[in-house]
């Protein structure tokens, strides 16, 4: 009897999150329609979905979405790439680490959105300042993960490269970089998420287009459905990006995935 109960549970387990969310949505819908929740602040999910579809069809969403995405792409590329290079360098070279690490430790805890006014003073109120803010947000998680990726490498790998007379380039391209790939991908995921947070935040503060702009306007004009609709877009976007990163990481670092799967 116990076995069958366990089996039933195993079969239900993957569906449980969907079930919980579904029940929550049905509850929300009924409560909102029955007037238990204020329909102005908590419009029924079906209405939100309808608004989202309208925004997609009438082309209102697209320019905002592409504004956010292009900022994200440029900012993440700049910040992520610098984080990658400096992080791997710091992981590999103790000398570089001793010099730069205290700086990183001091700058990292500063909330990135708090320095946005400063960034605007330096880079102007145009697109550049937003991209820079996003780049800074992506930079730190990328750097820290890349650095720890190299430092977690078993020292015996370096003894092997040294013993076999590998050049610095060989050591980097065949050991340091591939060995750190799993951590690099963790860095990419965290960096993209941070970049997204800051992208939306700077759009709330100062932008003409972007998902953050829709959110801010819908709050000011009390078109709350649009606010929810944008949140859904952001959520789906984040989910999709994370899924893509995961599948790329599985392809490029197969040994790591299989190791972690075996541990489960």
């Amino acid at each position, binding site marked *: 009897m116990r076995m069958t109960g366990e089996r039933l549970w195993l079969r239900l387990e993957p569906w449980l999150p969907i079930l919980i969310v579904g029940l929550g949505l049905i509850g929300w819908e009924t409560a909102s329609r029955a007037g238990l929740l204020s329909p102005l602040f908590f419009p029924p999910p079906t209405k939100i979905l309808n608004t989202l579809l309208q925004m997609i069809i009438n082309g209102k969403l697209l320019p905002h979405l592409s504004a956010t995405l292009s900022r994200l792409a440029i900012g993440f590329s700049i910040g992520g790439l610098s984080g990658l290079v400096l992080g791997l360098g710091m992981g590999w070279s103790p000398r570089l680490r001793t010099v730069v690490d205290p700086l990183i430790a001091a700058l990292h805890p500063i909330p990135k959105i708090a320095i946005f006014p400063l960034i605007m003073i330096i880079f102007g109120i145009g697109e550049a300042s937003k991209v820079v803010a996003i780049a800074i947000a992506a930079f730190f998680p990328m750097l820290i993960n890349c650095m720890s990726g190299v430092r977690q490498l078993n020292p*015996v790998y370096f*003894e092997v*490269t040294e*013993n*076999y007379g590998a050049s610095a380039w*060989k050591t980097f391209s065949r050991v340091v970089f*591939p*060995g750190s790939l799993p951590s690099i991908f963790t860095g990419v995921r965290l960096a993209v998420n941070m970049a997204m947070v800051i992208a939306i935040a700077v759009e709330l503060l100062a932008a003409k287009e972007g998902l953050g702009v829709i959110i801010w306007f819908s709050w000011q004009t009390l078109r709350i459905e649009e606010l929810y609709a944008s949140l859904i877009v952001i959520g789906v976007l984040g989910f999709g990006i994370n899924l893509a990163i995961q599948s790329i990481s599985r392809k490029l670092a197969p040994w790591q995935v*299989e190791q972690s799967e075996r541990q489960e």
Partner: protein
Amino acid sequence: MVFECIELSKSYVSRGAEVTALQSVDFTVREQEFVCIVGPSGCGKTTLLKIIAGLIEPTSGKIVFSIPQSNGHLRSAMVFQEQGLFPWMSVQDNVAFGLETQGISLAERRELASDFIVKVGLAGFMHSFPHELSGGMRQRVAILRAFLANPHILLMDEPFGALDSQTRLVMQEELLRIWRDHRKTVIYVTHDIEEAILLGDRLLVMSGRPGRIRQEINIPLERPRHLANRDHPEVAEIRWHIWKMLEDEVRKDLSILS
């Protein structure tokens, strides 16, 4: 002669106290000789091996190599205890790594590696990753990598230390078989007295604190050697002799009164 260690000493500072890992180690190694360094754990045998490999600098003394230091030919290649393979490379690329560092082209080194892998019967694992192999197979791959790099000297740091005793026996024979086909000078570090006797032409028995060579013993067994050699009366005699030499130290280490 391949190389000569002259008065090698190594000390380092640990928790504020100076520890002498090696003291006045003197020995010579001849061409194509299989030398086993045997001793209890902590006697500095791995340190000695790493000094020979050039991974560590001795505090004093020196090693004089009398082999040509030609370009593109490794002086030594080391087989590490475990974890020496790169998890992100296939078996083939791991075996080929020693050729890769010597600048041999991808196509050529892959071909050489796969020939070697097929010859020892690992063909089915050519494109597997190390985590897909058993511990014994991983060490076979590590040994292949070292042999394929074609160094003058092979350095082995307890390569079978992490394997179960059955696997170990088979691996010892396998190593001797590969070595018969590719004669090299081998320095083999182990704490297993019997393993050292069965593999080596000559044994350097070390004792620890500070690490030094207590005795050199020539092993008179015929080659090729087999598992059956372990029942040879001479093996038993040498084993007992070495054990008596090291026993006091092991007991002292464990605080057991003799």
